[in-house]
């Protein structure tokens, strides 16, 4: 089976001689939920822009679902749905009309486009807003509208460029559920996000791009396995002693009731809790200080 996306030696040099992409190669299998991460200016948006056909590549090859964009870009575009970072619809058009019109651009008859618009606007909880002009929607609704628009032609590959930016936490989780369901039904999804927790929760595979090069490409699990230490915050039921020392663990007392503990990946948590218990420190709750992927991300980029 052909890959959903295959990029080989892709470069982009802008007119001002900025080398945004320095020969990246990437493969995303069909059915994957893939994260493309990187700091601002790393080359994520340029890569996605080339898939959008809004940026002309300098060299390299890109295949979308087996179709080479140099040989048949319109054919390749049929397989991909794009949710860009910036709102790019006519703010004065009605919500339903925006989705139906996009269907028309993909050659869908009005009846089919209207039925698909209804299906996806309902799934994304926008059906009640279908007769409102886009500019009256909230930021989160506008993002969902762009997802509905990108799905109207039911693409094999959906590319989401920071789809949950500016979306409240409740709606973000609803969107996660929707995207998971979409992925389970066979749609390959590529996600860029600055919420690393989102990438860790949703994605099975990951590529990290920095300064126009891929610095990691593999499974999320393998990447997180490379993390040597994890930092936990422990909330104590009792007031902590002025100094807390636990043999084998690096600790730091943050306040009267909160203790920071660094745990190596080959250390057991049982030893930690046994020692805390021995010292009369009863733990109320435990949480990661930072997201695990975030720690790995910072470590890879530093």
């Amino acid at each position, binding site marked *: 089976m052909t890959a959903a996306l295959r990029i080989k030696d892709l470069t982009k040099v802008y007119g001002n001689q900025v080398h945004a992409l320095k020969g990246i190669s990437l493969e995303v299998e069909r059915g994957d939920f893939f994260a493309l991460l990187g700091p601002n200016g790393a080359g994520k948006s340029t890569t996605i822009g080339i898939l*959008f056909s*809004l*940026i002309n590549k300098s060299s390299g090859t890109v295949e979308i679902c087996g179709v080479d964009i140099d040989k048949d870009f*319109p*054919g390749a575009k049929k397989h991909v749905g794009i949710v860009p970072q910036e709102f*790019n619809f006519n703010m004065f058009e009605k919500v339903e009309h925006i989705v139906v019109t996009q269907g*028309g*651009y*993909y*050659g869908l008859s009005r009846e089919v486009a209207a039925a698909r618009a209804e299906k996806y606007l309902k799934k994304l909880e926008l059906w009640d807003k279908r007769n409102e002009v886009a500019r009256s929607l909230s930021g989160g609704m506008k993002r969902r509208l762009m997802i509905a628009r990108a799905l109207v032609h039911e693409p094999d590959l959906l590319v989401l460029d920071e789809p949950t930016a500016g979306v409240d936490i409740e709606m973000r989780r609803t969107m996660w559920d929707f995207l998971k369901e979409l992925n389970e039904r066979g749609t390959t999804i590529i996600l860029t996000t600055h919420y690393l927790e989102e990438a860790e929760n949703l994605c099975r595979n990951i590529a990290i791009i920095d300064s126009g090069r891929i610095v990691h490409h593999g499974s999320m699990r393998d990447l997180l396995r490379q993390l040597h230490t994890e930092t936990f915050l422990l909330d104590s039921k009792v007031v902590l002693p002025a100094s807390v020392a636990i043999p084998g663990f690096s600790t730091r007392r943050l306040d009267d009731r909160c203790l920071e503990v660094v745990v190596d990946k080959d250390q057991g948590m049982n030893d930690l809790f046994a020692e805390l218990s021995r010292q009369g420190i009863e733990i109320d709750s435990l949480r990661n200080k930072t997201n695990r992927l975030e720690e790995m991300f910072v470590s890879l980029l530093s």
Partner: protein
Amino acid sequence: MSALEQWIAFQTILVKEIRRYIRIWPQTLLPPAITMTLYFVIFGALIGKRIGEMGGFSYMQFVVPGLIMMAVVTNSYSNIVSSFFGAKFGHSIEELLVSPVPNWIILAGFVVGSVSRGLLVALIVTVLSLFFADLHVQHMGVTILVVLLTAILFSLFGFINAVFANSFDDISIVPTFILTPLIYLGGVFYSLDLLPDFWEGVSRLNPLVYVVNGFRYGVLGVSDVNVTFALAMISLFTVVTLVYCLHLLKSGKRLRE
């Protein structure tokens, strides 16, 4: 895309364009109707009576074809320039650029949309002119051909302006400082015979002269220029401009990075 899918995509762009200018009819259809009525009243009914005949017709009959063409030119041009630049400015043009719609369908959709506005305004102005002048079309084929080619040509010019424009100022510079003077000096209000030889020669370099006279020949049967030559020039300009517009879309100039 199959032929059917391309047809649907074309229809989608065209309907969107027509809906746009119909929705804002007080800005798109009403102003030319009012402006042209004022031209008919002032230049035709009031001043025209003192001027007398021109080219063998009453002054009102003489100016009507030119005024209709003026409406076609300005409306075809301004429709596409504002619509396409607006889509570019608001980034909604990306909806089309990311889709599999071929470039020539994108161009055709926008151009036919603009032509339809040019022709609709021409129809409105023609109906209004019948309140002021008695018109009998002499050469229906030439009339239709000139008005269609002119609407297409100026839609294509408007498209080029929209592609290169960076701001809303840029889309008003060409109509204000180039198009309007060319129209006024293109023989709408006078016959080239009235000009001294030198200025008559200079006027013949103005493409609007051929547009106005071609149409006047179709309606009244008189022209200051050779009509076959005029049609050939309009056709040639249309083909060259069309090829250039397709090249702009293919290269992605000012549309893609």
